């Protein structure tokens, strides 16, 4: 499914659809058995993730950060090249192609870490209810 990628919603949305409407999916609502991805290269086309850290040589890392791959940035895997390897990612509204081995060096935030980050928020939501 193609995703609408919008820099304005950086790191805040987990899912969005054709209309550009973004729905916030809180951790407790996440369907069971969802795939856990830890690096960018594991994303399927159409899936998105939030960058945690870059684990690449210094100069490459710097270059990628200037292209938008900064911690907390939302990255969507847009499409694979016809031959299947470089994948086009959408970050910050730009489309950038990376090879598998480069994408492997970009760690995504694990859902567990997010749980702890959002723990207070989660409690708040539950308290309101």
């Amino acid at each position, binding site marked *: 499914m*193609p995703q*609408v*990628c*919008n*820099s*304005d919603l*950086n790191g805040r949305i987990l899912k969005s659809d054709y209309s*550009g409407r973004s729905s916030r999916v809180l951790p407790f609502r996440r369907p069971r058995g969802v795939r856990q991805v830890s690096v960018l290269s594991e994303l399927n086309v159409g899936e998105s993730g939030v960058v945690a850290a870059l684990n*690449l040589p210094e*100069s*490459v*890392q*710097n*270059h*990628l*950060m*200037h*292209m*938008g791959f*900064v*911690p907390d940035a939302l990255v969507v895997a*847009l*499409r694979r*090249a*016809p*031959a*299947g*390897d*470089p994948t*086009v990612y*959408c970050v*910050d*509204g*730009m*489309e*950038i*192609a*990376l*090879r598998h*081995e*480069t994408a492997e060096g970009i760690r995504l935030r694990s859902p567990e870490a997010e749980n702890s980050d959002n723990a207070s928020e989660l409690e708040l939501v539950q308290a309101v209810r």
Partner: protein
Amino acid sequence: MSTCCTTPAFEPPSTPPSGALRTVVLIGPPNSGKSTLFNRLTGLRQKVANYPGVTVEQRMGLMAGVGHDDLTLIDLPGVYSLTPYSEDARVAVDVLKGKMPGTPKPDAVIVVLDSLHLTRQLMLAAPVLALGLPTLVLLNMSDLMEARGGSVDPLKLAKELGAPVALISATHGTGLDAVPLFLNQHSSHQAAARQLTLPVLGNAASTHTWASQISRRTGYHAPLSAAGSRKLDNILLHRIWGPLLFLVVVVGVFEVVFSIGQPMADGFGEILARAAELIRPLIPGSWLQSLLLDGAWKGISSVLVFLPQILLLFLFIGVLEDTGYLARAALIADRVMRTTGLNGKAFIPLLSAYACAVPAIMATRTIENKRDRMATILVTPFMTCSARLPVYMLLIAAFIPNVTYLHGALGLRTLVMLGLYVAGFVAAMTTAWLLKSSVLKSSETPFILELPQYRMPTLRSLGIRLIDRAKVFLRQAGTVILCVTLVLWVLAHIPVVHVAGGSFSAPELADSVIGRLGHFIEPIIAPLGFNWKIGIGLLSSVLAREVMVSTMGTLYGADPGTQALTLQNALHHDMTLGGALALMIFFAFAMQCTSTMAVVRRETNSWKWPAFQFAYMLVLAYVSAFAVNHIVAAIFG
């Protein structure tokens, strides 16, 4: 600060140098529309050169409509940051700091940012503003941003950045009056001291935080991403249609160049020949007539006729580049390029080498890895450049019958031409693989490629590109080719022989100096199926490939036996089919271009590489031509 804005034209010479603007630098990230803006601001008053010692292209131009006549605008290469990741960024920093030898220290900076991705683009503004020069920030493509529902408050942004900000559209030329306004303001007083909180420079994460804070505070609302580009990519990067359309584009370009370009070239050739006949009675003296018309004019016009086709090829490559398709082509080609050890980025210079190897070798600077870049430079001259076209077309027209297949959709001549293109490409790929698995072995470098949005190419930038190319071609024809043909004509006419009656006349072509030289080298080239006239052509074409055609024109024009024939017919009488095919293969592989060698020497900073390249290509060309000549002779008897 001075009292008021005086008219710059009447500025007294006593003004301190800091008050008068001389040099303005234009900087911006790649794909921000910087070049379009540069063309807008300078028009045709620009000159392209190279920075000394590096391969980065330096574009300078005089600015119009500002009130000064001597205001130079320097276009820096597109960079994402001032961190010296690539050679481009190093040059940008040196120019900005006034440390680049031969380039004046800039008095002001114009930063061009793509307003569609302002947050990320602002990351470049931080290190530029930190330099403390008077700076104008232009937000380009503001029309597109607004059309797609984005917005930003330029006044707030100006306050945040401590520099004037203007919304512009370089493509439509709107909002550009901000530039003269800014420059005239700053020619009368110095930039006010700014109080800015800038991020830790050189730290990408900190710069990004700073940029996103600024864009949030200025109410920047990013536009929706372009659905059109995405939809187009669904087709152009489709698993099956993508590569297929890519092939169609490449074959289509060549088909058009030959089917439309050929009549244009023929017509142009006829005009040139008629012009020669018109001036013939005006020139006194038979030897002067012969020197100017049979020697110089015939030589030059045999090359000039190919100008329409070469411009057509450049036009297509320009359109592919300006629309943003070339980046997609690199993405499609990455998988193939990978098997050779190079990456998709090497494909862009290789594709533009179809036009000319010299700009292509300069374009290799986008390849970050030094060894990859070297390998790309070394294989680039194998790509069929436009200078080979005249030779191919002459030989194909003379030797390949005009047969068509598939109800006229595909001609044998087009097929032979495509075969030559494929031969060059295969030679380039094989050589790249050989180099990358031996002397230039390196760890694989990351392939990071930005896919710009599809854009409509502007007539203006295409026009400027074509005029530039035509100028280079005509300069070549007017200097190198003219000299070579004149020298050849003279060598073909000495030593003069005494004729009965006390007058002098030219010797038989075979007895002239050039004829003897040709006969001297004939034993070396005879196994390839070349006669001594072709040998002279090969010697002269070491300067530039297209010189071959003009040399043939001059030589056959000087020979009374073939003077009346067209060059095609003369060749047809003088060569076998095997020799002709061998000659084409020789041209496909041999390095006959002094400009390319000079550029390789400058790139690699040593004579070792161009010498190696020349020897390698010459051996390959000789062996292949030898094989082709003998195989064809064996088959067709």
